[in-house]
């Protein structure tokens, strides 16, 4: 075994196809966002891909008003750390949620987002909302 079973390239190919993927340790059950060579909990390599449901809640957020050059046309935009139902967290761009409605604890749902031809992690309104 030489590489993480989900490489960065594979992760974002899956994102583009509408699927968020985690790694689950076959030895101890630890979850991780790939790529990860060794399990940080038990330090073995026994990862299995795990399809995430893509549902979670906002753990923290910000509204970027002064953006890097490549994103200046998008500003202002909201970024959030989202705690997914399975327990792992990931940073994503919020889409189709009014900026004044964003708050900690708000339920959101993963959606693929292409920024400048690059697949990235987006989160939109939860279907339940």
């Amino acid at each position, binding site marked *: 075994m030489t590489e993480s079973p989900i490489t960065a390239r594979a992760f974002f190919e899956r994102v583009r196809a509408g699927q968020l993927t985690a790694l689950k340790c076959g030895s101890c059950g630890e979850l991780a966002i790939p790529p990860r060579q060794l399990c940080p909990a038990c330090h073995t390599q026994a990862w299995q891909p795990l399809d995430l449901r893509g549902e979670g809640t906002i753990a923290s957020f910000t509204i*970027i008003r002064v*953006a*890097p050059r490549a994103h200046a046309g998008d500003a202002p935009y909201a970024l959030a750390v989202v705690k997914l139902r399975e327990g792992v967290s990931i*940073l994503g761009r919020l889409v189709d949620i009014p900026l004044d409605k964003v708050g900690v604890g708000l339920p959101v749902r993963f959606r693929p987002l292409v920024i400048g031809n690059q697949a990235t992690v987006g989160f939109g309104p939860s279907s339940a909302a």
Partner: protein
Amino acid sequence: MRRVAVIGVGVTKFGLHDRTSAELFAEAAQDALTDAAIPATAIQALYYGNVVGGETEHQLHTGPQAASVLGIPSVPTTRFETACASSHAAFRHAVMEIAAGVSDVVLVGGAERVLNVSTAESTEYFAYASDAVWEQPLGLTFPGVFALIARAHMEKYGTTEAQMAAVAVKNHRHGALNPKAQFQKQITIDQVLRSAYVADPLKLFDCCPFSDGGAALVLASEEVARRHRKPVWVLGSAAASDWMLLGDKRDLSRVPATERAAAAAYRQSGLGPRDVDVVELHDCFTIAEIVATEGLGLFEPGAGGRAAEAGRTSLGGEIPVNPSGGLKAKGHPIGATGAAQIAEIVTQIRGEAGPRQVDGAKTGLTHTLGGNTATVLVSLFGRD
């Protein structure tokens, strides 16, 4: 392990300069050598911090570049890059080289030049300290990282924007006493609260500026240091790391690397937070100071905002934090910051800080944080 002392310090004025980072470092280094009363020929190694030289100056290999411009081209030199903590990391390795008996006199320094490029460009380059595949493509900025930390802290502890503003007001009040500071004017809570949002809840006046500047330190073994005036002893120096991705950090309201580095540095020195008289810590954003005062054990988790608002961290308060003005008012030339913080603490312990002197300061602490909180260094200093 041998004892190590700081015997010379030098810092340029921070702000806009029309010189290269190597020139800024060289000015600070000459001042540090003069302060140490030691000739350049005594230097056996240079440990150097520089972060975005490749981007802003098209300059890599900045270690030998800096040594050449100073005029000591033949000493072994290494450039350290741990984002904003680079020259504090350089310092720690220089301490280890002397403690291990490899060298007796080592020069530590750092410099940065960013004001020769636009704010949009430097905003982009500073974001390179976050993950290039997972986070940069989302449009994450440096203020954005600390805005996420601020929101989590507000949510968990009820920290307010006014408490964060109190940090900016305090550090500007201190900076007005520091002739090397980029900003030497006082500001009001209202000015901070009315400034424009950069990354909610952080506003322009919650953020440190972009700065050019250099800093240098002469470190020596005990045998060499004993021949010099007022050596300031390194009582402990520790580094810690944490996850790169924001999503992997378990609790955004805390900085575990600060807690780990502080625990190690306190253990090395046999001191605790109650023993520290003066602190220079990493206030790249006002919330960063609040979280750092908690992580260093100066206040309980969640109590940092109220402590700042109550003046407990002001000059004249129970534990003065950032008497230099901090990154907020003194400025933040990222490669120079760690060395400059150490220079301030050495100056304070010598009792030579003039109008910003903390009365009777015998023991001081420096804390420098890299980028997205994935690197932290903490060092402790004292006198005989």
